């Protein structure tokens, strides 16, 4: 059965995040309550995601390398967004991430039951919005990382690639590169390509469509065609959150707000067999 491989230290999982850092990411989300820029919103979400990944892997004796993570920004320049000690490193095991954030901020966190407490909030990714949308260049880096991964880890849960963008590529047609990524596979299935479109305008969100019929713009149709069909476990996770998905639903959200980004990243990076 596909997408059921156990995630372990012997069989880790590869996560690649591609982050649009073009100039237009300075704008705010078109809807939702988040008031800062899309660039800041995405940086906050990614830092929170990495924080949660580290905690999921942290055990009494240390952090177990269940995941290897890459975060690639595309604006100007294009490349890994890890800095400090991790500068220049593309795919980093979660234990190394855990010990090397850029800094640790202290932020207030609301716990179940209403209690508030000031907690550690490590920062790995800084917001940036400069340059054009060099999505093809970023996808090529992802393709290289996925290719190396499936050769080195043939039995692993398939690599997951998440692309967060607010528009179309300005450096060519990204579809062939995305399809090349989706064609790479481990014994457990094909690599998965998720695309989240972040909008500053229209409030109409389109979540996980099975068809591109309703998509109003050509670049949205392209992003749809770059998106994998959701595996059952991920689709079921989204249905449990109250979303009605059709058969063949794609890993694509159009006009996403920050909440949808958080939701898909959380469910998409939570393979059910890491209990």
């Amino acid at each position, binding site marked *: *059965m596909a997408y*059921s491989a*156990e995630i*372990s*230290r*012997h*069989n880790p999982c590869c996560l690649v995040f591609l982050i649009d850092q073009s100039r237009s990411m300075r704008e705010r989300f078109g809807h939702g309550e988040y008031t800062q820029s899309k660039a800041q919103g995405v940086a906050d979400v990614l830092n929170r995601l990495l*924080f949660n990944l*580290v*905690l*999921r892997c*942290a*055990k*009494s*004796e240390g*952090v177990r390398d269940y995941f290897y993570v890459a975060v690639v920004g595309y604006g100007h320049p294009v490349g890994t967004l890890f800095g400090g000690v991790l500068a220049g490193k593309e795919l980093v095991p979660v234990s190394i991430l*855990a*010990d090397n954030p850029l800094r*640790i901020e202290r932020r207030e966190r609301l*716990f*179940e*039951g209403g*209690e508030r*407490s000031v*907690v*550690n909030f*490590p920062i790995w990714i800084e917001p940036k919005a400069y340059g054009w949308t060099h999505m093809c260049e970023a996808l090529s880096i992802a393709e290289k990382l996925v290719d190396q991964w499936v050769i080195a880890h043939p039995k692993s849960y398939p690599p997951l690639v998440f692309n967060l963008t607010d528009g179309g590529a300005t450096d060519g047609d990204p579809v062939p590169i995305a399809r090349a990524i989706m064609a790479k596979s481990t014994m457990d299935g094909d690599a998965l390509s998720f695309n989240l479109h972040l909008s500053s305008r229209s409030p109409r969100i389109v979540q996980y469509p099975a068809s591109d019929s309703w998509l109003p713009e050509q670049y949205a149709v392209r992003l749809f065609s770059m998106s994998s069909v959701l595996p059952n476990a991920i689709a079921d996770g989204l249905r449990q959150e109250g979303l009605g998905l059709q058969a063949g639903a794609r890993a694509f959200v159009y006009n996403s707000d920050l909440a949808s980004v958080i939701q898909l990243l959380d469910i998409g990076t939570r393979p*059910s*067999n*890491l*209990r």
Partner: protein
Amino acid sequence: MHVVAQPFWLHKVGNAPEEYEDAVWPEQLTDQEGKLFRFAVADGATETSFSGVWANILVRACGRGQLKDRNLPKSLPRLQKEWLTSVSLRAQPLPWYAEEKLRDGAFSSLLGLTIGPATADSGKSGRWKAVAIGDSCLFQVRDDHLITAFPLENAQQFNNRPVLVSSNPTGNGRVAADISNKSGEWQPHDIFYLMTDALACWFLRRQEEEGSAIVCLSDIETPARFAQFVQEEREQLDALGRPCLRNDDVTMLRVKLF
């Protein structure tokens, strides 16, 4: 009443034995006469830290009769303090993620069984009662028939997000609503099995599909035989290509009444 309780356990493949995070009470073979007996198993959640410590605190409290019947939440504060004291004594200073894990606390399932004395009029049978949070399960077998499955009754009911009891006081918002209680009658020669979820799911599925789970387990008398059985079932695949027994810490306590 004469009771023989024998625990069996094996850690997950890929982990070291000391990384096993289930717990069982009693930890050793027990062969005793008595009027009342308590047993427990617990399964510490993989994604939390020091969950094995928490699971052990829970089964010990259960086994010693320190958990309030039908009001488990009121018993927790003292145990939560015990957990925090135990883990806080470890290496200091803690990395930022270890601080956060302590703050979040550990989570565990819990299954407790109390076998009461024989009733005065029968002299040979009596009452048992059980409490459960999460997906560790109790199976009562009589004459090679499964007569009770608690709290889950079929393999389809297992999922990856059961409600668990937390060592953090703020982490138990849903626990009170998800505690299950059950009672029933025991008779001489009944066998009770307490299992953590991976083996419990295997048991129900094998019993549903082939009716042979009880016979399989009756063959196991030693830790070596248990380890062999677990390995075989982890390697055997079902019709969908999945292992018959999911790779996880495996714990079974078999309680025989005479």
